[in-house]
Structure formats: C-alpha cells, structure tokens
C-alpha cells in the first residue's frame, strides 16, 4: 500500500507514483519460468494446515446433518416440516435454486465472455470461477429436487420413453428449466475439464503415489502434441462461444418460471434480462470472495492473483451494478406506474409490510452501496474490502430472490388467502447446501491446480515490453 499512501500524501508524489508505475505489478509482465510456476502451483495443492482439516471436518458434519439427514427426514415426513403453505407454495428451496444458478453465472461469464473478448486479466482465475459454476449448479439442482413433493418420482419429468406412454409437458417452464439447466451443467463441466487436461498432465509429471495414478487417469494420456493442442484449442473456442447463449438462456428461463405465471409482480417482461444481470451481480461478488479467500489461504497465490485482478473485477462489478440498477428500476417503475390493484397491494406489502426491512437491505446492498465504494481504485485494490462488498451484494441478492418468491407469493388476487411465509426446516437445508458448496471447493482446491498454469504462461509469452524512446511500453501479440 506504499503507493497509495504516497497518493494520499500529496498531488505531486501521486503524479510521480503514476508516472513510475511499474509494469511488473501486472502478472503478464512479471513472468517466471514455467517450471517455477508449476512448482508453486503443486506446492499450493500439497500444503494443508491443521486449520484446513478442522474446517473440512466441520463442513462435512454440516453436510451430513443439515443436508442428507434433514433432506431424508423431509422426504420421509412430507414437506410440512418446511414452511411452505397456501399461498406461498414455493419457498426457500427455489430461492436457493435461483441463488445458486446466479452464482454459477460468474464462472461462465469470466471464462467464456472474457475469453472471447481476450481480456487478459482473466487468465489466472478462470478455473476458480469455472469451479463455482459447476458446484453452484450442483446445489441448484439439489434444491430443485428438495422442493418437489414426490422427489422419488422426479424421473417422470425426464423425456424418456416410459411405461406410462406419457411424455413430459413441454408447455411447462419447469420443463424448459430442466432442459436448460442440464445443458448448462453438462456444458460447463466439460468446459471446466477441457482446459484442465494440460494442467493435469503437468501435475501427473510432478507427482507420485496415488496422486500420480489420479492425475494419470484424468490426464487421459495428454502429451501436448500439435494435434492435441489443436483439437483442444478449437474445442475451447467453440465452447467459449456456445456456452454464452446457454448461460443467458438458463437464467432467462429461470426467470420465466415466474414471469410466465399469472401473478401480480411476477408477470413482467423484463424479468429475463433482470435475472441474468442479477445473476452476474451475485456471481461477481462471489468471485471476489473466492479470490480473496484463495489469496489469503493458499500458498503462492499472491503471485498469481494480484491487485490488478481485484481492480479489474471491481470495475466489472461496478459495471454490472449499474446495469442491474437499470433493470431493477425498469421493472419497479413499470409495476408501480401501472397501478393495477393487485400489484399496488404487492408493492405496498414489500415497502411497508413486515418484510420491508428485507426490501431496504436489498436495495442498499445491491444498488446504493456498490457504486458508492467501487468507483475508488483504492477500494477496488483492497482485497478484503472488495470481498466484503461481494458478500453484501450476495446477501442483498439472496434477499431479492426471497422477496420475489415467498414474500411476493403472499399477495395474490384472493385477499382471503394472504398469509406470510415462515421458513422452518428450510433453514437447515440451506445451511446444508452452502456447506456442501464450500466443502467441494475445499476438497477440489487440494486436488486440481486452481491456476491454469499453461494459460498463464501462454499469456506471459504473448506479452512483452517494447522500448520506445525512454519508456518501456507493454505490447501484446497474438499466437493464433
């Protein structure tokens, strides 16, 4: 932070500080030999402190009790152990679903869109983000099944020939959901695996014992011949382009689950993009948190993940916040202006009802606070601060989904039935899904290289400093 303290101490030095900005603070212009980087990554995987194991133990306990046991109990007893009722037939489970799908969007966004647009700062943490996608989607899927009344018959929703000679109903947004989400899960998992192969090969060459066999099996015998690289890069490019529309479709369809319904507050044509932006909003926040934790807990990460990345991420978040605000306002004012009785009641309920506190928090955390802080480079470059903002955004976004599902469901066209939802067992199951997400992440962080070393090296090879007059100017060249 020396640079920034100068920055504070006076305009002149600050000017100098900018003038003498050292290109080596950027990962791409601070290359290390590949071998060294490999060693660092391998070490980061191998070193675990006792704290790691303690946290791991706690999480696994939570997963067993709050996820598996609680769910089993609910399946056995029926949904009444939860808080769902008339009129809030949908509750926290779908809140979790939407939330986790939202989280999952960040991975795709960073690794696909930034790849397409060749944003170089993405290189070190594409994988970390991709993992969030996969694990987030697992939790989302689990939550959907938790929500079902007769989950043991859920296979009736799959389009497979069956004895009942009955095919699923493709009029149903839930059917679209099923198809879209399964496409997204498969797609993003494959997209996670393809760039991983070379790093697995690297790990294979550098490990012994069970890890050796583990990596050997996963690396599929990759050597790095011209052909292999060619197929890989073509495939990765295709994925990068193809997964983007899938990602947009997924959250749009999730939003349609609500928008298609004949309900005040839900039936809104702007829900699609609104939800997509919401997803990115929470996703970016989550990435910020993950990067912060990685950097703080794992060895050598401060080399790969630097201020520049937080800075860039902060800029992204700022951008997304503005876009999100735009859509929120758009949805809100249209509903408000329409003045339809049912919708009026609903807005009244949100702003002054017993859940108003939630509404306010949501507005502050998602719309007011981020722009107020993120404009400052100093904030953006302070990892813990950025992570904190990320946390706030995610809390806010969780409230947003909570407001949209159980709280909005309270108000319908039959005032005689209005009742306020109170979560019960859902609380435990929510804890369960969160613990499971973290648990997966921790385990995997010690099993596969979180840093795509070859991508980093590739990047460093394409970046160089060219001497023009007295200045060294960064230059980027294309390998393909």
């Amino acid at each position, binding site marked *: 932070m020396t640079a920034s303290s100068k920055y504070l101490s006076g305009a002149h030095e600050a000017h100098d500080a900018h003038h003498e900005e050292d290109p080596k603070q950027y990962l791409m212009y601070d290359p290390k030999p590949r071998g060294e980087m490999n060693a660092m990554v391998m070490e980061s995987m191998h070193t675990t402190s006792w704290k790691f194991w303690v946290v791991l133990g706690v999480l696994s306990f939570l997963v067993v009790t709050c996820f598996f046991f609680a769910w089993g109990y609910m399946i056995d007893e029926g949904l009444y152990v939860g808080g769902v009722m008339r009129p809030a*037939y*949908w509750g926290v489970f779908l809140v979790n679903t939407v939330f986790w799908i939202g989280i999952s969007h960040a991975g795709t966004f960073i690794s696909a869109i930034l790849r397409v647009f060749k944003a170089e700062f993405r290189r070190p943490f594409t994988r970390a983000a991709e993992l969030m996608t996969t694990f987030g989607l697992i939790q989302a899927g689990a939550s959907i099944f938790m929500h079902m009344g007769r989950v043991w018959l859920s296979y*009736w929703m799959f389009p497979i020939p069956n004895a009942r000679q009955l095919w699923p*109903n493709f009029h149903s947004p839930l059917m679209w959901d099923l198809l879209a989400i399964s496409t997204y899960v498969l797609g993003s998992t494959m997209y996670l695996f393809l760039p991983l192969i070379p790093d697995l090969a690297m790990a294979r060459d550098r490990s012994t014992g069970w890890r050796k066999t583990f990596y050997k099996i996963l690396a599929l015998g990759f050597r790095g011949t011209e052909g292999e690289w060619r197929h890989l890069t073509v495939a990765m490019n295709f994925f990068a382009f193809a997964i983007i529309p899938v990602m947009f479709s997924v959250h749009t369809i999730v939003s349609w689950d609500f928008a298609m319904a*004949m309900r005040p507050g839900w039936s809104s044509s702007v829900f699609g993009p609104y939800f997509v932006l919401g997803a990115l909003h929470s996703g970016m926040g989550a990435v910020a948190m993950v990067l912060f934790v990685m950097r703080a807990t794992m060895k050598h990460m401060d080399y790969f993940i630097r201020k520049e990345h937080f800075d860039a991420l902060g800029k992204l978040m700022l951008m997304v916040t503005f876009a999100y605000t735009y859509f929120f306002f758009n949805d809100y004012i249209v509903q408000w202006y329409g003045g339809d009785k049912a919708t009026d009641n609903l807005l009244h309920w949100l702003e002054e009802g017993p859940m108003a506190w939630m509404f306010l928090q949501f507005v502050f955390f998602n719309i007011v606070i981020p722009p107020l802080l993120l404009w400052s480079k100093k904030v953006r470059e302070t990892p813990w601060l950025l992570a904190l903002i990320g946390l706030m955004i995610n809390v806010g976004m969780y409230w947003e989904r909570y407001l949209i599902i159980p709280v909005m469901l309270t108000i319908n066209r039959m005032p005689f*039935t209005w009742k306020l939802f109170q979560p019960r067992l859902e609380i435990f199951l929510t804890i369960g899904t969160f613990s499971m997400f973290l648990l997966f992440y921790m385990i995997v962080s010690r099993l596969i290289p979180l840093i795509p070393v070859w991508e980093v090296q590739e990047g460093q090879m394409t970046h160089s400093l060219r001497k023009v007059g007295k200045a060294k100017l960064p230059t980027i060249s294309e390998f393909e």
Partner: protein
Amino acid sequence: MTVDLNLVGAKGAIAEAAEGKWGMTIDQDICTGCQACVAACAMENNVAFVGEEDAGYGRTQHWIRIERFWDGEYPHVKATPFQPMLCQQCGHAPCEPVCPVFATPHSPAEDLNLQVYNRCVGTRYCANNCPFQVRSFNWRDYHIIPELGNMVNGTLVFPLHNQLNPDVTVRRRGVMEKCTFCIQRIHHAQDTAKSEGREVEDGEFTTACAQACPASAITFGRVDHPESLVSQMAHQERGVKHLEELNTLPRVTYLKEG
C-alpha cells in the same frame, strides 16, 4: 382420435365461444355461510383435516372455502356476502400448461380441469398459477397421522378410514388436489344413463356441495344446455364471473345480491 387437437385446444375464437359443459352457479344472496357444503365436500371427496396448527398456518385442505370480508365501520359495518370459492374449472386454466408432467390436463370429454393424483410429482406450480388459490397440497400424510389411529393388539387401525368414499382416491403426501366437480358422480350418472340408453337429465344428480346446501344456493348442471336450470340461473343479470379479465373462462357463475 381423429379430432385435430390443435384446433380444439386453440386459444381464440373456437374455445372462446365454447360455454363449457358442466357448470355451476352460486347465489351469494342466499348463501348463509353455514359450511354445510364444506363438510359435504370433505365427506364425499375424502378431504383430509389437518389439525389446529396446520389449519391456522394456511394448510387447510378445503376444496371449497367460504370467504367473508368486512365493509364499513361499526355501527354501519356489514359482512360482505358469503362467497364460496372453489375450483372454477377454467376453460383456459392457467394451472394446466405449467405442470411438467401433465398432472392437471384438460379433459375434452367433460371439459373439466382434471387433477391426476398419481401423475403428480408435487412441483406446486399449478397452485402458484391459480388466480383463485383453490388448490390444496398434501403437505403430509394427513390421513395416517398416528395420533388418529388406535393401537389394537399391536397394529394401528384408523376407524375414521371406514368413512372414506371408495370412488375417490385418498391422496398421499406430496400430491396436489382440488375440487373436481364431483367427477365420480358425473361418471356414475353418465354410466347409468348409458346403460338405460338415454341422456343424463338435468338435476338427475348433483355435486355434494349443491346437494347439501340448505339454502339451495348452489346449482350444478350442463351450462351448454340452454334449458337446464343452471344455465337459466347463470344468465340472470346478477350473474358475474370472478377475475373475468384474466380470460381463464371460469365455469362458475356467482349471483350477486340485489
């Protein structure tokens, strides 16, 4: 079947014109809110009772409920006319298309909104999408809560089960249910008429609620037969349909006061 489903089911002129087949009128002017219809419905259709806590929390299973609001302040306060609310058997039911497993399809034969219990997987989308909020979900196995039974030499027996109507499925947990216009009675009447080689006559049978109603406020029958009692009732000037603006084509007509 040879009929072109695309045309039959099409939103627009054709369905719009269709009166529907079975329909109901409820005269709010003489409904005394006595709950006889609710009890009769429960007895006929094996509707479960849920106990105090769940009932208060909004988990009642009533297929028909009687709504009552207040109008004005004391001493000029009035209770709004009792309003029995049950499945309106919409012609364009919003609950139907959203079910991923066709558990609540539209029956071309009766032109009713069916609920196929054994097909239901419990996504509860239909209930969310029902503007009338008349669908009830089996949050648990209300019929076999142990406390309802007696331990008779080691086995739990439920005396109350003897009352269950064999013509109606007993719903297990995780299944959506709703008013069926007593379809079992419709079918019974149709079978009888068929075996006697005739058409079902108006008033030959009726739904449990209509049958019990001490004030005879509920009338049930063929709304597509202009001479039937129900269609004559429905075409009075005091007849209104609920949430008509949603174009769900409800089959229940409410007769207002005055």
